[in-house]
């Protein structure tokens, strides 16, 4: 292993390590202060989460979380803050649920069609703040937040007035997604390769879809010219402009991809466990997605780890109930993990960059034009 690779790995792991340590310490402290044993807590969580049931549940829920986080991350990579994932997700879920029962196709095509509808709705709703930003310079944080509220209102209106399942007059919900649009379970396939899952632990097939999306994300961002333009715009907008990138087009395209992914993530729940859109549909996902994207530092691998870890902690906390330890400690753990990650990422990033620049400057044998002190550029921008 070359020295450079060692340094690279070390700098990549240093910040998350610091963050994990800080959050664990804070949570342990909170537990101690409220009179509980952190050791007992850890044991309970570990025992609960290492059962097959838990693992399946984690994977099922981590997959849509992963997809929505990717959507948020692609925006972050370009310093675009798509806080509107919430509204995009919601509308996509509703429209996909409502539309799925209005036509019928053989199974794989039906699923594909519904996913396409969800993605398209998410992308379209995201296009609004994108266009507003490039034409009227409207700050996307505010416009997406406003549009989240509007999406809530619109989806409620559409649900009650147009997409309602008439045969259930007491509840506001859509018709169930037809069987031909539902994602199949993977249990059968796993049986074939020798893994036996308990009958009630159904691993659904959104997981491989999420993995594929992750791979496509990686390819798009690191192997295409579009991705190159995107990354350059995020790290150095001035250089991007000089190199010919069309900033306005990039903004709209990127935010639409972001919204599309949010919409796609909704199908991860809609076409599996929650087959209709109603009050119980999990709506908090995009919010968590933002946190996971930050934790995963906008990288598909990091986000995968973060999504899995996040869901594991959330699931594991259910095991605390038996020990009479408040499961809310998981929120403290995750919350402090987020804050300390965000801080340590920034500090480590800046330090690494200044070190590299300083090394290079002192290696210069002597600048040519006398009198010009070298200027140290201030590294700007969000976490790359």
């Amino acid at each position, binding site marked *: 292993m070359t020295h*450079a690779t060692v340094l690279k790995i070390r700098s990549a792991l240093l910040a998350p390590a610091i963050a994990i340590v800080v959050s664990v310490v804070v949570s342990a402290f909170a537990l101690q202060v409220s009179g509980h044993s952190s050791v007992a807590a850890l044991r309970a969580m570990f025992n609960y989460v290492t059962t097959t049931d838990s693992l399946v549940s984690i994977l099922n829920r981590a997959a849509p979380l992963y997809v929505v986080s990717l959507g948020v991350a692609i925006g972050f990579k370009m310093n675009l803050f798509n806080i509107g994932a919430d509204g995009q997700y919601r509308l996509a879920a509703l429209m996909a649920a409502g539309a799925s029962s209005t036509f019928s196709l053989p199974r794989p095509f039906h699923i594909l069609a519904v996913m396409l509808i969800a993605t398209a709705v998410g992308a379209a709703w995201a296009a609004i703040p994108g266009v507003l930003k490039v034409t009227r310079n409207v700050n996307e944080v505010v416009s997406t937040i406003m549009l989240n509220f509007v999406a809530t209102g619109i989806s409620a209106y559409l649900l009650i007035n147009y997409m309602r399942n008439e045969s259930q007059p007491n509840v506001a919900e859509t018709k169930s997604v037809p069987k031909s649009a539902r994602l199949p379970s993977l249990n059968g396939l796993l049986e074939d390769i020798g893994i036996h899952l308990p009958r009630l632990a159904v691993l659904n097939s959104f997981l491989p879809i999420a993995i594929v999306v992750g791979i496509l994300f990686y390819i798009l961002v*690191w*192997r*295409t*010219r*579009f*991705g*190159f*333009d995107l*990354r*350059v715009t995020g*790290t*150095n907008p*001035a*250089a991007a*402009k*000089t*190199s*010919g*990138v*069309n900033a306005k087009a990039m903004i709209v395209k990127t935010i639409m991809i972001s919204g599309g992914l949010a919409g796609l993530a909704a199908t991860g729940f809609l076409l599996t466990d929650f087959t209709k859109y109603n009050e119980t549909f999990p709506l908090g996902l995009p919010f968590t997605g933002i946190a996971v994207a930050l934790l995963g530092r906008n990288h598909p691998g990091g986000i995968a780890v973060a999504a899995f870890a996040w869901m594991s902690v959330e699931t594991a906390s259910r095991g605390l109930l038996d020990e009479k330890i408040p499961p809310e400690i998981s929120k403290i753990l995750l919350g402090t993990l987020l804050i300390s990650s965000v801080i340590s990422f920034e500090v480590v990033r800046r330090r690494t*960059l200044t070190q*590299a*620049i300083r*090394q*290079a*400057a*002192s*290696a*210069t*044998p*002597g*600048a*040519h*034009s*006398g*009198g*010009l*002190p*070298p200027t140290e*550029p201030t*590294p700007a921008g969000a976490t*790359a």
Partner: protein
Amino acid sequence: MTETAAPQVLAIELRGIVKRFPGVVANDGVNLRVRSGSVHAIVGENGAGKSTLMKTLYGAHRPDEGEIMLAGEHVTLKSPREAIARGIGMVFQHFMLADNLTVWENVVLGDEPGSRTHLSHKMARDAIVELGTRYGLRVNPDSYVSDLGVGDKQRVEILKVLFRGARIIILDEPTAVLVPQEVQALFTSLRSLTAEGVTVIFISHKLDEVLSVADDITVIRAGRTVGEVAPADVTAHDLAEMMVGRELPRPVPRTDAPSEKVEIQLDRVTVAGLGDRDALHEVSLSVRLGEVVGIAGVEGNGQSELLDAIMGLRHLKSGSISVAGHSIDALSTRDRRESGIGYIPEDRQKDGLCLAAPLWENVMLGHQGSRPFSLRGWINRLAAKKATREIIAAYDVRTPSAEVAAAALSGGNQQKLIVGREMTADPSVLIAAHPTRGIDVGAQAAIWDHIRAARTKGLAVLLVSADLEELLALSDTLLVMLRGEVVAQVDPHTVTTADLGAYMTGARKGTVPA
């Protein structure tokens, strides 16, 4: 040097100031003697050490060696706040004014009149009106700074320092952004100031102006004081010669001649600037294949705007630009680069590189849409890395590999990489802005060789530089820009550096063939 009859009080005296930075000695023994109540000009080219000297004077940093004396007393200035307390006020070239605040708010900020719980608008306004009347710097205290013209903004900056009791005012290139009428108004104000006993130091490279308003002049070159004169005793020509230095070595005349075919042409290009002034005014020039056209001029005279206009980063107010006979006005920056315009930007770290990205990605910057780096939207990493390795070899970029981040390279190696990347794309026109600024002599020589080699192969090069040696070494034709216009065209083989300096500073009017 003229001696006056009675010994004058020196408001400021600097003796033997030395200031070092990593890799460079910015001030190498500077002396300065400023008489009280005089207008004292400091002249020198870019990189001569003027800004570093000024920072010492107003307390932004401390010199490594040397003494500072105010009215005969030794002082150390530990901070700008201390300098202000001692009566030294600095007026920066780039205004430090908050646009959305009013004049009076900008002036009193930090030293607010009134009490801790009440900011007295009235006291502030009265003070400004009083100062304005006394020193001839009238501005409406209640105007928003964003509504003010450049000349008025400068007045506000001067009022800022006067409000804090400055008796020594330092102005950094004050006329850089002013139109002629505003320049006259400023000079009148300077006279009012000295009439009240205030000492004025101003830094400039515009020798015609310096000669008209200064009482004393100090010339700095390469970090040293090379002359302390009175305007009555020198001509602009003499000053230019002092500023620019000894005769530079003549370039070796080339054996081949540039072709007749014009590759890039600018026709009466005008670009809007701040306020009423055009940043570029009716600039026409052309570069033929196999020719290097150099543009000399002190920075801030329209060169950056010229480059931006050619690259499509700035909108043309009027005029047009064409390459190989076809107008490129409608083309985007990307299209212009892909059509064969290579660009070496003047600020490599801001516009030319992504410091945190590996070298092979930086080599793609500006060419990410063309082969071999990408094909139909897909990036070819192997090709990019291979091309990078070739550039590293051919251009002698000192780096452990093609994978390191650009930030890990020294300035010279970064620049060599950029030059290599642009040349390898086989452009028909190369726009090079300060290509060897801030890099070591060895890298500079290498880059010059590459430019010359490309020229022989038929590349058209437009070279903008503040380094006269570079311009004389490489150019076939040399233009001089001042205040957004091309003011002279000279033959680099025969022009004297003194003449060149004179054209650059407006000390002499040049001629431009039609």
